[in-house]
């Protein structure tokens, strides 16, 4: 059994060596997850806000579906994207299977429900506070969306980070649609699976430590930016 001490030493050695293969894996992991979170946010923030503001038949169904999709198993998302992008699938002509783009698409599907559902909650709470004032100012509901999103920005930052956490941690979807191709679609999590399957547990754990450190760093940066801005804006 690898001791955790062993794994830490492996992680340290990996970082010290600045191995170019490792570096490209780290960069690809960050690219895929950050782009996926960015795209998902573009769609999910307005969607969540709209769900908070509009009442329409079937609204509860949509909310329940979004909440349920927060628990969508990554493998299922991966499988759906696989069937979609496969040559034999409807979007096969695009030739996107086993590319980083396919991984981004799969992660967008995983992250979007989380951001949309949590945004809906945040915006609904803020809207309860703002509604009378904004109505008094004569705002239409669609004009309220950017106002509410901007004023909820600190809470939404946490929401987006939750989405990033899901994207950077998942392996099931990127494994299926990316194929874990060395130098092309291999990311941190699929490398960890590969090393585990080789029985190279210290290496797998070492990569895990690096991934955790990276995610911690990004969360710390976001937290510091958020806290500073919050202190400035009250």
């Amino acid at each position, binding site marked *: *059994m*690898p001791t955790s001490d062993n794994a830490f030493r492996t992680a340290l050695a990996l970082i010290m060596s600045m191995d170019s293969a490792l570096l490209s894996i780290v*960069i*690809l992991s*960050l*690219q895929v997850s*950050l*782009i996926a979170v*960015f795209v998902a946010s573009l769609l999910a923030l307005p969607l969540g806000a709209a769900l908070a503001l509009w009442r329409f038949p079937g609204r509860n169904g949509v909310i329940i579906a979004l909440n349920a999709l927060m628990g969508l198993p990554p493998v299922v998302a991966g499988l759906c994207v696989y069937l979609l992008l*496969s*040559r*034999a*699938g409807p979007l*096969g*002509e695009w*030739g996107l*299977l*086993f*590319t*980083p*783009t396919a991984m981004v698409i799969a992660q967008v599907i995983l992250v979007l429900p989380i951001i949309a559902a949590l945004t809906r909650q945040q915006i609904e709470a803020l809207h309860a506070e703002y509604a009378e004032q904004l109505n008094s100012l004569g705002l239409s509901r669609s004009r309220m969306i950017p106002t509410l999103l901007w004023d909820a*920005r600190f809470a939404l930052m946490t929401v987006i980070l939750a989405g990033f956490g899901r994207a950077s941690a998942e392996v099931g979807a990127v494994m299926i649609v990316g*194929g*874990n*191709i*060395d130098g*092309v679609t291999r990311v941190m999590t699929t490398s960890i699976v*590969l090393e*585990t*399957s*080789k*029985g*190279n*547990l210290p290496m797998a754990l070492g990569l895990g430590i690096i991934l955790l450190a990276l995610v911690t760093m990004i969360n710390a940066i976001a937290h510091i*930016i*958020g806290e500073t*801005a919050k202190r400035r804006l009250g």
Partner: protein
Amino acid sequence: MKKATAFITLGALGLTFSGSLMAADDYITLASTTSTENSGLFDAIIPTFTEETGIEVRVVAVGTGQAFEIGRRGDADSLLVHDTAGEEQFVADGYATERLNVMYNDFVIVGPSDDPAGISDSESVTDAMQRIAESASPFASRGDDSGTNRAELRLWEDAGVTPKGEWYRELGSGMGPTLNTAAGMDAYTFTDRATWVAFENPQDLTLLFEGDEALFNQYGSLLLSEERHPDLKHDLAAQWHEWLVSEEGQQAIADFEVDGQQLFFPNAE
């Protein structure tokens, strides 16, 4: 803060673009098995091929069952798998036009070093498997329709054993995870030699049975049908297919060693 976010995002987008631009156009996607990938064979032979032809080979390592499915859907340009019966069926079904023997290695049975079923002195693999079943010693099976799994199931049949019961554990995992699990539960398991030799977490597992001709594990390369999937990179895939059985390709396979041990034996006709 808005600026910072925009900056990070643009940076990330830019990197992706440069990343995809860097990738060579001349590449094929090869669906192959975890045993070849995990043992490190591809890391050893593909650079030689790429150097000679300028063609990059991107390996998607999956179970043989999934590799066939990827091939049927046209999601890979070439297949290198180890299930001769399945491969012949694949050709018969019209998904591939040609199947060639490339190399073989062999399967072995590993298990806890105290060998509770006493298989180490078995006369044949069927004998060994009968002993495991009779003593109801824990046995970890891949259970994932991979080439290894299919070979294992054929051998149970030959041994006249229906693998069922508390002792027989279908894991539904790749070779590596199955070895990890077998090591954890002190179970016997059926593995290809290459993965076993390269495996780094054996714990109390040890090689207990090997050498029966029935454990022969043949790998074949499939040339996919141009008729069925005209969009694939058939020209490049054909070069790979032919290189594997060429003198250089066969030599590269023979030269691959782990811990001074040759793992794959070229046998192209």
